């Protein structure tokens, strides 16, 4: 990618982060930490990687994305809104009684959401089913799913991975946000899921480890995914990230897994993101 493209993506990621703060602040609840850590990934998927059409969200030949870590809906919604699936101004209505923006992704109410998720470990199975379905139908459709590293403790994740490898789903990309934190603390202390790379390799996947904040590394990982077509193996992208990335007081704090910023915190966070935007703009 060239410098101007990189700059555009970085600016977009800042907007995604602002949307996350706006949504969780408006909801007075929700999950900012894991939404922020995946902001670059959401941005890249919806602005660069996926073959989608915001004007036709149900287009049957589109690529699919399943947010297996469904609690990070604010990140997904923010990217979808900025990509034009629905008005950005609706983000502030997240989780409100009369809002279509449900606390966890709902495929029947939110334009652009390909699967209803929220119960951890299940999204990856539905995505594997979509990838299998695409192969069965002979369609050139790519299916992406995003999990958290805490989610890997769910046994169903490994049932799904086994299924994906068994059925040679090389159109399937499993992305894991390794921010190292979950509700009760550090993943390595709560239930150690490491070594994640060796586990997925042993299950028969092509595994790529990247810095999840780095767009060039994300691009290279997806290039590798596309080169894996024909390898008969699913691709796994393990991205090292920082939970709460971009908002200083949230960074690497388990306490910000599922807590909304209050008014003062919101103002501070938005000011920090605005400063980050200016810095990218002027670089």
């Amino acid at each position: 990618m060239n410098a101007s493209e990189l700059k555009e993506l970085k600016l977009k990621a800042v907007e995604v982060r602002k949307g996350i703060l706006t949504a969780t602040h408006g909801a007075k609840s929700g999950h900012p930490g894991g939404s922020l850590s995946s902001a670059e990934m959401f941005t890249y998927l919806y602005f660069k990687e996926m073959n989608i059409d915001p004007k036709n969200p149900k287009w049957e030949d589109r690529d699919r994305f399943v947010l297996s870590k469904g609690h990070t809906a604010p990140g997904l919604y923010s990217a979808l809104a900025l990509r034009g699936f629905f008005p950005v101004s609706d983000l502030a209505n997240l989780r409100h009684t009369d809002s279509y923006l449900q606390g966890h992704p709902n495929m029947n109410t939110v334009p652009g959401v390909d699967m209803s998720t929220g119960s951890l470990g299940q999204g990856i199975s539905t995505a594997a089913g979509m990838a299998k379905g695409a192969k069965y139908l002979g369609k050139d459709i790519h299916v992406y799913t995003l999990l958290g590293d805490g989610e890997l403790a769910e046994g169903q994740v490994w049932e799904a991975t086994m299924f994906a490898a068994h059925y040679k789903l090389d159109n399937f990309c499993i992305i894991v946000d390794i921010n190292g934190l979950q509700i009760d603390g550090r993943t390595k202390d709560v239930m150690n899921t490491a070594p994640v790379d060796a586990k997925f390799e042993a299950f028969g996947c092509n595994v790529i480890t990247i810095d999840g904040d780095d767009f060039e590394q994300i691009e290279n990982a997806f290039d590798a995914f596309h080169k894996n077509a024909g390898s008969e193996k699913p691709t796994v992208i393990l991205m090292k990230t920082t939970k709460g990335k971009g908002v200083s007081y949230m960074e690497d704090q388990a306490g910000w897994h599922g807590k909304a910023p209050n008014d003062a915190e919101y103002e501070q966070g938005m000011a920090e993101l605005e400063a980050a935007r200016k810095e990218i703009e002027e670089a």
Partner: protein
Amino acid sequence: MADIKKVATRDSYGNALKELGASASDLVVLDADLAGATKTGIFQKAFPDRHFDCGIAECNMTDVGAGLAAMGLVPFVSTFAMFAAGRAYEQVRNTIGYPHLNVKIGATHGGISVGEDGASHQCCEDFALMRTIPGMTVMCPSDDVEARKMVKAAYEMKGPVYMRFGRAATPVFHSEDYKFEIGKGEVLNEGTDVAIIATGIMVPEAIEACKTLKDKGVSVYLINMPTIKPIDEKLILDAAEKCGKIVTVEEHNIIGGLGEAVCSVLAENHPVPVKRVGVNDEFGHSGPAGELLKAFGLCADNIVEQALALIEKTK
């Protein structure tokens, strides 16, 4: 009924899938290492590229079904009732029920008649679990003919469906011209003294009971109720008005199944005394299916006894 043809409804399931498969190109079948037992192996043999074995991983299989449905296919997710409704309950609730996906769950080996495998595999709770999921259609066929027509009707409707089939061979009493409709009960005998509403393989037992009661001078309104949800309220109320007392019969815990579904309709519209014949809130055990059904009172003799007792009680 020794001279009557007997077929296990799990065989009907496999045969119906194969028959449908020839014209329905969007129909795919999933199984969890039980294709020989659930009889999806019949479909697999005819359409090997449309049968996906998911291995012994029912939760994953259930959600793979949701993913396939989201791609526009019509998956029939197949395993034993214990695992389809029990183990994968939350997958069905959150990822088939909540998004209202077009997944059909074919659950075989329902109830006590699983037999020798014992309580761990004798699911008598599946109606209760599946009924509480909003938008879920719950059905249980009474014989081979109804089972095959049910599978076709499930394929033709949009939305999630749970179907329970049996392991044991049971009498076939419908003729091929029987018209099956989802949500509709079938009147097998008109009567005025007592109504018997049965589902699944209890229907042939209820037919036998009806004959015995007739010999004793009792007029029975006999109903086959293949759809547990949405239940045929109109027919239940008709039976209540005509007979004033109802016996329900199911191979399921008396908690949460057909009996309670009937009671709910009656309690809110036309209260009449009811006797629920079913598994009395207990686990099963090993034994041949026929012996077990008798031991748990899931047989014509006990239906007769309970019907007479209800008539006596309400005199």
